[in-house]
């Protein structure tokens, strides 16, 4: 009897999952960000070869884009579950979306305010600083929202995907400072990690879509 109950519970969880939709929406948001970052970036290259830049486009794009993306995901989840004859728990995800939408601009403004009357630290920054910096960026926040979604969907495959994704954006890809010269210019160096993240999310969406369509 208990195993029948477990089987029924598992079937409901499978029927309620919309993992691929969430990944697809986040992939689209990530890929659409690239031109905003490219054209919204302020770059000032000095005669000594060094360059200063500010990614203003991202600051304007991501808060609105992530808010819209999470709202769209929540609405799609509710509609799909309803069409299947099921209720859904989408509120924790919507709350995570709202919080993660605010984390990036809040961190940006806080750092800007701090360094307006404090000197920039001399010497190389510790490694954890870069990891923290990447975590509060939109791509890191996408990883956090995927962890929440994995918990809501009770989805071990999504949990594994989210862990791999977070390792990629926190430890591997230079999301904050881009791939450097001499191979890439500043704009291209910044665009490439975003392109990789967008493609990874897109591949994840297709993978989960295929898995969901497989006969049980």
């Amino acid at each position, binding site marked *: *009897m*208990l195993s029948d*109950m477990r089987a029924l*519970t598992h*079937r*409901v969880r499978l029927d*309620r999952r919309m993992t691929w939709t969430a990944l697809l929406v986040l992939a689209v948001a990530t890929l659409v960000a690239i031109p905003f970052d490219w054209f919204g970036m302020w770059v000032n290259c000095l005669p000594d070869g060094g360059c200063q830049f500010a990614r203003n486009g991202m600051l304007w794009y991501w808060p609105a884009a992530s808010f819209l993306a999470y709202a769209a995901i929540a609405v799609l989840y509710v509609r799909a579950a309803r069409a299947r*004859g*099921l*209720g859904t728990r989408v509120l924790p995800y919507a709350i995570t979306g709202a919080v993660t939408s605010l984390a990036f601009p809040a961190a940006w403004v806080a750092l800007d305010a701090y360094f307006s009357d404090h000197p920039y630290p001399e010497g190389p920054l510790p490694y954890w600083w870069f990891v923290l910096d990447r975590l509060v960026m939109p791509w890191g926040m996408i990883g956090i929202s995927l962890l929440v979604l994995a918990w809501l969907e009770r989805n071990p495959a999504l949990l594994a995907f989210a862990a791999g994704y977070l390792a990629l954006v926190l430890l591997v890809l230079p999301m904050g400072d881009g791939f450097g010269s001499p191979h890439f210019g500043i704009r291209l160096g910044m665009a490439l990690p975003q392109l990789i993240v967008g493609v990874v999310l897109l591949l994840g969406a297709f993978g989960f879509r295929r898995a969901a369509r497989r006969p049980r």
Partner: protein
Amino acid sequence: MTAVTGTEGPDAAHPVNGLDEVVHQRVRLGILTVTHEARRVEFGYLRTQLELTAGNLSKHLSVLEEAGLVGVEKGYEGKRGRTWITLTPAGHTALADEIGRLKQLIARVEMGE
């Protein structure tokens, strides 16, 4: 709530004595399980998952509704009538009790009492 067996005495603490026959019935336990996981479930989804006829499912739902374990809400989406079932707080408690008792029962059998 009614118990399957109601003996008093040395066996009164046995988990079987606490099983509620309204909940313990296989189909009704299935309805409660699906509704608990889904939060809110449509009549047609339950019928498909539990492989029941509409009449049979209605009968079991009436028993659960009379016991105050589920709420039944009828409405329309467009021209299509839809019936949604939700678990009441008493339904949540009854399901948790049932699962607890089944687990106790299994533990006692495995300990070879």
